[in-house]
């Protein structure tokens, strides 16, 4: 296992800002073996529910298990795909509608590995990381538990 694959902090409190994404991109410009970056951003939709539109999602996680799951996904992705870098960030706490709760960033010499890794990582996160989301609905403080499909 390379030094670069050590466990990394994934969870951030609240939404992920576009500026944070920009800083992450900029920090890769010195890595001149990279030819392709694939970025996935999950944004909170204002879905209509009984009781009104979703105004945000309040995320919690079974944190220790989730960190381990993220670590396993990272290791598997580095094994499966020819990647130079991989970064995953996920929000905890309230993320309002229109803001970003998931940021997956993979970089590779060539586009194919970047595309494939990006999809793989997002699907793995959705299926296998114990993160829970309370969709806040309407004005009255109602909520609905979100479930990935």
């Amino acid at each position, binding site marked *: 296992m390379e030094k670069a694959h050590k466990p990394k902090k994934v969870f951030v409190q609240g939404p992920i800002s576009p500026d944070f994404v920009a800083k992450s991109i900029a920090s890769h410009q010195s890595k001149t073996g990279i030819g392709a970056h694939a970025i996935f951003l*999950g944004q909170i939709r204002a879905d209509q529910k009984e009781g009104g539109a979703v105004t945000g*999602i309040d*995320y919690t*996680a*079974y944190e*220790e*298990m989730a960190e*381990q799951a993220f670590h396993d996904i990272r290791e598997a992705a580095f094994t499966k795909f020819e990647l130079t870098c991989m970064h995953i960030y*996920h929000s905890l706490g309230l993320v309002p509608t229109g803001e970003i*709760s*998931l940021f997956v960033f993979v970089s590779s010499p060539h586009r194919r590995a970047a595309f494939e890794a990006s999809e793989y990582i*997002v699907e793995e*996160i*959705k*299926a*296998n*990381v*114990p*993160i*829970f*989301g309370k969709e806040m609905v309407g004005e009255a403080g109602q909520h609905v*538990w*979100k*479930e*990935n499909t």
Partner: protein
Amino acid sequence: MLAEIAGLSDEVWNEAGGLTVGQFRAQMLDKYPAMRDKKFKIAVNQKISDDFVLIETPAEIALLPPFAGG
């Protein structure tokens, strides 16, 4: 959401030993019948576990509602 049913988020389950995941599930649904309507997986020491797995004690058991990351 499961904690909302049980009214608490941590609970100590005393058992002499030899309980499988499936047996634990059955005992818990007896105690909290409203959970029968809920989907959840059981993690033992932070690993999702099948019903036939024997729970070593002490163990950290977690009921995990559907995942919603992303």
